[in-house]
């Protein structure tokens, strides 16, 4: 700040505090990646620094199975990441995660965009009533009503399906609200011109409004995808049977639950695989991500 004299000691003190904070924030990420690269012995004794020595170690489990010792030497990193994918269907979990998050986002947009357009630009009786309802529904967090939703889905026999993972999130009142505010700023002339050209209202939503809304939609996409990729509660509630439908966090929890203690390396490798994609995306497009995640700040 320009007021007062600029102090170097003050600046240094701030850096010192911020660095201390940064170390605590990074600590678990450090542990996660470091352990995912180490052999069980190195994890047990804290040897090998961040990357581990990467020297081959003897896989005791492999020896117990009766294989000759010479065939049981493993590279730690390859062993951990290999087991992450072998011992549990991690690839399947990741695929499920992608299917669920993408379906949720696409359906949210299909439902919310026309509704937001109607609320912002079309005149019909009851419009304010519908908007009032949207504002009311913003008060209801979906996680809080997970139980009645689960009961309803169970009664129509939909638990343990992809549908169950997606249905509660198909309606995003927040998305409707956000897009309506955005559409309000689109000039009416643009819409009138499209009507003059003989475009239907349906066409206007997807060919005129959608292109205008790309920046807002991108932010909403990040908001939605991050929330549902990381969501653990709802899949935990609604998936009670087969692992085939597990999303990444649920798969990781399952892996942790069935752990005998010696598998910390593969567990951390699994965690790394699940967490890293979003972190990398975030580092590549920070401004967009911060905008998207703090969207709810615009309410």
């Amino acid at each position: 700040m320009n007021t007062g004299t600029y102090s170097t000691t003050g600046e240094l003190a701030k850096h010192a505090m911020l660095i201390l904070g940064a170390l605590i924030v990074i600590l678990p990420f450090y542990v996660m990646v470091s352990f995912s690269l180490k052999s069980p012995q190195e994890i047990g004794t804290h040897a090998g620094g961040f990357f581990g020595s990467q020297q081959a170690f003897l896989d005791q489990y492999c020896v117990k199975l009766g294989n000759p010792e010479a065939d049981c030497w493993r590279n730690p990193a390859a062993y951990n990441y290999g087991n992450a994918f072998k011992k549990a269907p991690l690839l399947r979990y990741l695929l499920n995660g992608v299917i669920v998050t993408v379906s949720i986002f696409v359906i949210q947009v299909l439902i919310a965009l026309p509704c937001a357009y109607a609320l912002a630009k079309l005149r019909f009786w009851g419009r304010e009533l519908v908007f009032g309802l949207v504002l009311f529904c913003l008060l209801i967090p979906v996680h809080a009503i997970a139980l009645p939703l689960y009961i309803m889905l169970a009664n129509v026999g939909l638990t343990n399906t992809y549908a169950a993972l997606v249905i509660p999130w198909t309606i995003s009142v927040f998305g409707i609200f956000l897009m309506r505010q955005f559409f309000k700023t689109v000039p009416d002339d643009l819409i009138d011109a499209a009507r003059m050209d003989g475009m239907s209202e349906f066409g206007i939503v997807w060919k005129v409004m959608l292109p205008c809304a790309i920046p807002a939609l991108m932010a909403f996409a990040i908001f939605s995808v991050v929330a549902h990729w990381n969501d653990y509660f709802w899949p935990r509630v609604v998936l009670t049977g087969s692992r085939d439908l597990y999303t990444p966090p649920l798969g990781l929890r399952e892996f942790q639950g069935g752990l005998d203690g010696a598998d910390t390396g593969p567990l951390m490798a699994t965690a790394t695989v699940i967490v890293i994609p979003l972190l990398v995306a975030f580092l590549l497009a920070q401004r967009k991500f911060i905008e998207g995640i703090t969207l709810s700040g615009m309410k």
Partner: protein
Amino acid sequence: MILRHTRLAGYSFVLPALVLMFVILLVPVLVAAVLSFTDYSLGNSTADWLAWKNYEKIFTRSSYQKMLWASALYVLIVVPVSIALGLAAALAIHSLRFGGNLYKTIYFLPVMAALLAMAIVWETALHPTIGIVNRSLEAGCGGWVETFFSWGWIPGVDPESSWYASSCQEGFPLWLGEKRYALATICFIGIWQAFGFNMVLYLAGLTGIPRELIHAAAMDGARSGWQRFRLVTWPMLGPTTVFVVTITAIRSFQVFDTVEALTEGGPSKTTYVMMYAIYEKAVEQNLMGMGSAITIVFLMLVMVMTALQRYMVERRVHYS
């Protein structure tokens, strides 16, 4: 003609959203409200009407009182601490000459990472034998670190009875397994995850404060940084604070991942928060009536908080 045509379009565009809003958001609230007066469980075609019995239990039985207490305590710890840290980080970063963006990026990382995964990683870091935390603490025993953190250099303090020195003697705690520490540890993870989010909102708030205002305050005699903060920055951040408090409170109320993965409500129900109680009662034990009653209490609390926030934002409350 156009008018009627657009009116029809309006109805058809709103209809799908309207139907889903009813089926997915409003009907479940009613379902929960009705079931909360019964002893319904899945698989039964009928249920008995219990009137207020479930609610009575929530407010009288000790295990549910522990639940309310654990949730309240969690919120009352995580909200102020994560907001104070978020604000402090934002103020420091905002006034830095260089390097601010790097800190901002780092502090935001936990917000992006799946909380469940990071909870499991924290469990590893806090593990009594392979964990980096206790190992580092143990490494400090016997050296200057112990001398310093035993506070013996402060006059009148007995270093032998300090936390650090006695832990060096008797071993460092099982962070997630001991009654004294479990909830604090869960709170710590919650704060670790949430404060970066608050920081970003405060940074946005800070850039919205005109520099002239701070200059003017300095001219008028607000000499110290603290005075300028108290007189200008803090009141100007009022709307941000209202928002940050409510969203953090609502999210903390919904804490589940860390509890389910690390403590399962224990030890002795010290971390038995509401979302976990709903999950345990309803999904694991099939006591849908009880679960619904907790859901309704939970929903009331969340809705009151959100409504309060809206009211305050609309009044554009400024703290002073």
